[in-house]
């Protein structure tokens, strides 16, 4: 395999390792996971094309995030979304927050962490999982979830809050035991 392909495959593979992190960033800017996922898919294709521009020794997560940011703006442009000054300021502030606090974690560390997360998710009630699926996978608002599952908005909000906390505690306990 040529050196060029080596670099390309390495960059793409490393970038794929940060897929969830990039989706999180895109989600902050576009407002829903389905769109965020589209944006990140587009970004991966750009990463494939532009892998040579990645400078070894610098943060690949930061480089990918910059590409995702451009893809977000392209998406908004295609959708003819008017961006108010408030939105622009918030986008800038969000980007600054990610630059400061989104860090690269080791892939083996992430693997064990995600395994723990799946394990913990499997332990919550089916009802709570339905609420989470409706919220995160289907991208429904509180009112829609409440209508769909026959709950009040407050019950939906509380369920999400409580079970996110439970999952977090479970994952952290799991990680402490494993370390």
């Amino acid at each position, binding site marked *: 395999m040529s050196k060029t392909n080596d670099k390309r495959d390495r960059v*793409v593979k490393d970038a794929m390792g940060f897929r969830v992190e990039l989706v999180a960033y895109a*989600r902050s800017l576009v407002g829903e996971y389905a769109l965020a996922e589209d944006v990140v898919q587009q970004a991966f*294709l750009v990463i494939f094309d532009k892998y040579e521009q990645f400078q070894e020794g610098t943060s690949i997560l930061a480089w990918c995030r910059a590409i995702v940011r*451009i893809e977000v703006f392209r998406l908004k442009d295609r959708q003819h979304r008017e961006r108010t*000054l408030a939105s622009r*300021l918030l986008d800038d502030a969000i980007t600054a*927050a990610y630059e400061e606090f989104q860090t690269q974690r080791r892939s083996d560390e992430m693997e064990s962490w995600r395994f723990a997360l799946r394990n913990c998710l499997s332990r919550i009630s089916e009802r709570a999982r339905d609420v989470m699926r409706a919220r995160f996978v289907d991208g429904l608002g509180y009112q829609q979830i409440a209508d769909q599952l026959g709950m009040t908005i407050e019950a939906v909000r509380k369920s999400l809050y409580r079970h996110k906390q439970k999952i977090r505690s479970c994952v952290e306990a799991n990680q402490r035991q494993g370390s």
Partner: protein
Amino acid sequence: MSDGSNQEYLIDRFLSGDLDDHGKEALALLLDNDPEMRRQFVDILRWESEIWSALNDETAVGTLTGDEIVRLASARKTTTNSKILSTAVVVAVTVGFFIAVGLYQILDRTDDIVPLQNDLQNQQVPSSVARVTGLKGDLIWTGDRGQIVRNIKVGTELAGGTIEGLAPDSWFELRFNDGSTIMISGSSLLTFGDDGQKVLRLREGHLSAKVSPQPNDRPMVISTRSAVLNVLGTQFNMEADLTSTDLTVNEGAVRFKRFSDGEEVVVEAQYQVTSDQDKRLLPVRVPSSVFTWKSELNGQVGNYGKWSPARMDSPAALKAIPLVPVENPEVTLYLAGISANRSGGPPVVVMPDSRFVIRGRLKEEARVYFGIRVKHPNGDHAGMFRGDLNMLQPLSKIDETGRFEAVYSLSQFIIDPVVLERQVENASSPDGLVLDGVWAFTHTMSPSGLEIFEVELLPPDKLEEEHGEIAN
């Protein structure tokens, strides 16, 4: 509800799409000002996204794998359109309908997928609110549609966005359609827009403005991390950083409100005020000019370089950092810049026959190039000058510890050639103008290790006797 819960609630409302523009501004302000809020925001999104990913995998919605990306992109690069289309169909069937939508978008693109650096002239600006009337040095403009542009030109029409000065010698002037002008200089970051009301945000750096009369109910609003200014028509200068905002009003009046306690004052002409938390919000008269100056290296808004504290064997220093000039991307300069603006300090006037002295350290002998930025007494940008070009700058000799001292006489200063190339207005000489900032750099094949300990402006001998006090 605790602050933490409030913050979480605000983030939750944002993620639910429930925030209007006021809410978004509040969230942006909190993120700007509170590191804990930034950390919490990223943390919440990380957890939610991991949960999304885990649940999403359970429902087996197709996503592109690395191999599929390679296959897709290779096909796009190396085959004809018809082959790409057939590849697209096969792949779309394999990985799901949503990817087909994505593929359509891919095919719809040009080869230059990511114009990380592009030319503004080739882009359509939806509705111009302002025109670039002057600029110099390294600048990046990010339009409100996300274009990142480094090649800005005088005359370019802009429809709002963010302008960032990347170097101490950067300077940018913008004229709104009503004739109001704003100018940033040095390492500054400004977001601006005008949808009937001019709204600006100075994240950091120096800004001067000359504002035409604005409607009473729609004043120009300039916000920083620590204060907000309402402007109806006036001329003023300001600077902002993480902790404070300083304002000097030259003409008219500006209403100044400090965020931390909501205190508000009207600052009249020839008065200045700072939002510094430790000081009462009290406008004070602009002090008289001085003719001498000594640099402040630490915590000064607009400084450029890496500050290192004093050690046993060395004073505090500002270390030069790499800069690749837009005009010549093949070159790497090692540059440090120091602002001469000080909160509440008097204007420093550069007198004929004054001289600048730089003291610092180098790894080895090198030419240390030196420039200054000056402004008019009313704060308007006046020009850039170089002290090293009239005669070939000699190598700076170093002692056994690498220390050097270089002297630049004002009589030798000439207009910065970059300004001449750009055909922007520049005073013919810095004499009698107010010092705004200085910068020094080396142009060597490898890092020169340039560190600045101190820059000093010394008046002519006669003046030195009359004005013995150093303005520091």
